[in-house]
């Protein structure tokens, strides 16, 4: 059997949100660790979309069905409402067309779950405001010139974006992700104090 994989903090929050036996699509599923966990522990019917061939090979090793595709081209092959849960974990910030991606998620899934690093975190604000430097942190670990993250957002901006895309926010988990995932949920002033967040959305 596949060994039990360590999940990132956001993935553990997401895993807890997926109901038993759900049909789950993970967009940008990476090495398939989250989907394998959902299949093994939740009896979920899992499908992944991933662009990187090496990651696809890791998914095949985990026996996770995965479709090579570019999220920026949409999900034309997927019929409306096909999935109970569509996941976009730590991927929103790297896609070229976030609006298309979120709209497609809302179309093919009953629930959409999105996780992303919070650009409104105080360390990010401090780096820019006090030091005049592009922020590099645990949640955003890249220099400006080699970052795959081209669409950073804050919790506040993301809420506006959801409204704009016709999404209703059902749940919002803001947290500070620690080393090896001991994450702490942030309830007070999350846009300032949380460095990551998980949003659960549905179509309006």
């Amino acid at each position, binding site marked *: 059997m596949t060994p039990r994989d360590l999940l990132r903090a956001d993935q553990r929050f997401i895993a807890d949100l997926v109901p038993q036996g759900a049909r789950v699509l993970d967009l940008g599923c990476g090495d398939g660790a989250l989907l394998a966990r959902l299949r093994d522990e939740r009896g979920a019917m899992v499908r992944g979309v991933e662009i990187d*061939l090496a990651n*696809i090979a890791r998914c095949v090793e985990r026996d996770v*069905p995965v479709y090579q595709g570019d999220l920026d081209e949409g999900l034309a092959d997927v019929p409306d409402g096909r999935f109970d849960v569509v996941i976009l974990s730590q991927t929103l910030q790297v896609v070229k067309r976030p609006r298309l991606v979120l709209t497609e998620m809302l179309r093919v899934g009953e629930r959409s779950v999105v996780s992303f690093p919070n650009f409104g975190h105080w360390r990010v604000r401090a780096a820019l405001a006090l030091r005049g430097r592009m922020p590099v942190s645990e949640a955003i670990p890249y220099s400006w010139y080699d970052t795959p993250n081209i669409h950073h957002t804050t919790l506040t901006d993301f809420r506006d974006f959801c409204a704009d895309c016709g999404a209703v926010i059902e749940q919002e988990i803001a947290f500070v992700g620690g080393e090896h995932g001991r994450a702490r949920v942030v309830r007070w002033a999350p846009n300032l104090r949380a460095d990551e967040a998980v949003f659960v959305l549905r179509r309006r």
Partner: protein
Amino acid sequence: MDSTDTVRRPWEETASAGVSATKTLVLDGALTFASGRTITGVEVAYETWGRLHDDGSNAVLVCHALSGDSHLAGLRPGEDPGAAPGWWDVMVGPGKAIDTERYFVVCCNVLGGCSGTTGPSSIDPATGAPWGLRFPLVTIEDMVDVQARLLQALDVHRLLAVVGGSMGGMQALAWAKRYPDRVGSVVADATTWRLGAQAIAFNEVGRRAILEDPGFADGDYYGKETQPESGLGIARMIGHITYLSDESMHKKFGRRLQASADYAYDFVSEFQVESYLAYQGARFVERFDANTYLYMTKAMDYFDLQGGAPSLVEALRGVKARFLVLSFSSDWLFPTARSRELVAALREIGTEVTFAEIPSAYGHDAFLLEPEAQHRLIAPFLSNALRRAEAPTGGGPVDPA
């Protein structure tokens, strides 16, 4: 310890599958073709590697492409160790993606072929002469039916997997549809659920070259002094161009001249690409039968997984296998877009399907020339298929823990 020193690259271990001899099975009774015609005494040339488990759970059928044969991997009896191994040696052998230490591997020459299985060059028992063009037209489904009869005779009642590239992939797809209860997994590699007009057009030009060669003699050239060598050679040259990509041809040949630095101002073969194609054509004529070329290309043209159904999705209902669908970025003969159509339909009916496009400059031939990327996908796919088949629940999906 540097891990790169110890990482095995099994696809580089030439002829590790060892020596295998071609065996022949004569099918009992008659064989009815899709066309409705019936013949008897069909012979099937096949080879096997590895050992079939007592419960029959580990059989893998590999289907060959247009010009292939049963000699999938390793060497033939009596061959020098340095001889060219079987046509998919990189993928079949101990530790390779199709691991002969774990699977019972079967490969047979297809119906209509010219490497031991009954085809147009075989003797028609009614006349005592070669069939020629009187041999019934063969379909991919006819080939699959013959494979099914062979496997019954080998005591294989359910396949762990069917693996095939190009025309072999068509057979693998036909297996999943025709025998849904007898196939656990399918690897559809560099293949298509039906050819488009462009591919049919190239096949037709190849056939024309053969049919209009004066040496063809309406297919009755066997034993005669004149053979349709020119026609078959040209057909192979055309085919070969379609198996490559502009990029790979440019890299390999560019505009380089073969013999001299200057143009000859004559219609002789001058560019390296010309002599390469001529060589490929000439070598092919030595080992392949012109009639079989006609039958194989026609079988590919006829193949349409949708059949008479209103849509591919409808045609695929009832298919139970899991799929690994692979395409290659520069393959314009069996393009990625067509593979995506197949994958979308398979997903629609709820099958577990993994799809990847492997980056390669080699064109359609990439499935023979890109072993590492294929190994990394096919090896774990088959490994999981075996794990599932050996699970107490049988061949079904893994029960959630």
